[in-house]
């Protein structure tokens, strides 16, 4: 067996984390992307910048602030305490919350682009065909933006799989709880178990390549005419 039980556990945890984060971000990111794509508000710029922050912010900085917020004296920490939920740092839940922030732009930006390229016209047409705005959103905007949803989901999933810094800051390194694949590799290297590190790294490399290959091969061809 190439992979140890610890490796398999880490991979399973990573997949679980990435799936949950992708699902949450589909629900959370879609309305944000929709708003950003359609608003004429002066808040579009600032909100867009905030969403994009994790793209440029060092993960440790994001992790540090999230840790403070989730800690016993942070706002989120006090909230979880008041609600009787266990403190988020060093839990799987904490990891999910942190990853949602960290991967937010990878969901929002492709979706925003997709919604923007759908444009106003199909929604106007839908309205003249008696569709309410919500109806038009689900029956016209979402199907027309379907390639964007696929791209955004793949990117979000892959990016969550690949995160390391934020996980280390928020989740630490607890087997089966917060020790995801990237952290497991780090552990292997720390322990000079290079062959183990090789196997897991190889899997990550192949996975990442396949994801990008899928994105580039399936990229929808530009639409013809109006």
């Amino acid at each position, binding site marked *: 067996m190439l992979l140890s039980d610890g490796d398999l556990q880490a991979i399973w945890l990573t997949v679980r984390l990435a799936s949950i984060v992708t699902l949450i971000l589909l629900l959370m990111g879609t309305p944000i992307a929709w708003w950003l794509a359609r608003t004429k508000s002066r808040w579009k710029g600032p909100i867009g910048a905030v969403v994009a922050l994790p793209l440029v912010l060092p993960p440790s900085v994001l992790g540090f602030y999230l840790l403070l917020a989730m800690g016993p004296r942070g706002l989120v920490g006090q909230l979880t305490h008041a609600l009787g939920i266990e403190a988020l740092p060093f839990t799987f839940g904490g990891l999910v919350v942190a990853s949602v922030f960290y991967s937010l732009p990878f969901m929002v930006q492709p979706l925003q682009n997709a919604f923007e390229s759908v444009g106003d*016209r199909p929604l106007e047409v839908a309205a003249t065909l*008696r*569709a309410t705005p919500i109806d038009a959103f689900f029956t016209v905007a979402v199907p027309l933006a*379907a390639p964007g949803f696929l791209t955004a989901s793949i990117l979000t999933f892959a990016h969550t799989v690949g995160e390391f810094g934020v996980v280390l800051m928020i989740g630490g390194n607890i087997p089966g709880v917060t020790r995801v694949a990237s952290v497991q590799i780090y552990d292997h290297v720390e322990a000079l178990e290079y062959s183990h590190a090789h196997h897991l790294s190889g899997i990550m490399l192949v996975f990442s390549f396949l994801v990008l290959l899928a994105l580039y091969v399936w990229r929808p061809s530009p639409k013809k005419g*109006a």
Partner: protein
Amino acid sequence: MFGAQVQRRELKMSGIHARFQLDWPGFTLDVDLQLPATGVTALFGHSGSGKTTLLRCMAGLERAPKGCLSINGDVWQDENQWIPIHKRPLGYVFQEASLFDHLSVIGNLQYGRKRVTDHQKVSLEQAIELLGIGHLLDRKPDRLSGGERQRVAIARALAVSPRLLLMDEPLAALDLKRKREILPYLERLHRELEIPIIYVSHAPDEVARLADYIVAMEDGRVLVQGPLSETLTRTDLPIKIGEDACAIIETTIGEVDANWHLARVDFPGGRLWFRDPGLAVGSRVRVRVLARDVSLARQPPEQSSIQNVLLGQVDAVGEDEHPGLAIVRVRIGASKLVARLTKRALADLKLESDQDVWIQVKSVALME
């Protein structure tokens, strides 16, 4: 005074009453229209004249802060209410077909249809048949030609059984060939459906062919409005659709002379011969007579190459664009033609109102 108010109300009950005021940077729309609730009304004007904006206001795609709109007494917008577009019983055809690319043709047709409950005016089959798209139903929009796409878009708008059909330059994005392909379908809508159509266009030939009523717009205002032929033959404010003043006569083919390849159109007051367009006797046609092709004489002309000679009366005289030219409107029974004369000819002939005059028509064009 009370009577006038009642009359005004009755006027509002039938027909389309549209009043909109809109102030955008660099553009103002200010119109107050009373339009017939039957036939085709053309909103005619150059780009930037506000015709599309007016149409979008009527649809509810733009919300004019000050506006009133009622269709046969049903209020869609006034000071107190604004019915959102998806609740207005209208059909809208955009300049580009704007089909839903993720749906097949039949999916597009059914999109609106399954969202309405009142299917009385138009059946789905009728919409498909009227636009001749029965063989395209299973296709995806990207497998259609430009003309086919626009026909599907028109059928889609009809399939919701609208009480008002709004069309925003539906032919402007098409080349001449596709335009020719679609115009007959539009004429069929006009003839076979009892849905009032508001048709935005800057193309004179479309207006001449389709419109019953014309609203000419300029800079967000109404320049002149009225029934098509009456408005075109106005001498005080001549509206030209195309380069030249003209009259449009709605008529039928009365006789075809196969020997000389000629056809005769009959209209109230007269008949005109022109080259045979190949239509059956009884076909409804519109013909256009340009003012420059009409000359007037005090005596019946003899042995002239111009064989269309009608007796009529001088109706009105007006200025043409050039100071040396005048436009004379003549009555032939219930129909009217316009003639362009030099002012000297006008003076020499000593034409006066209601005077009998011989009208020579050099050329008649079928609108197609």
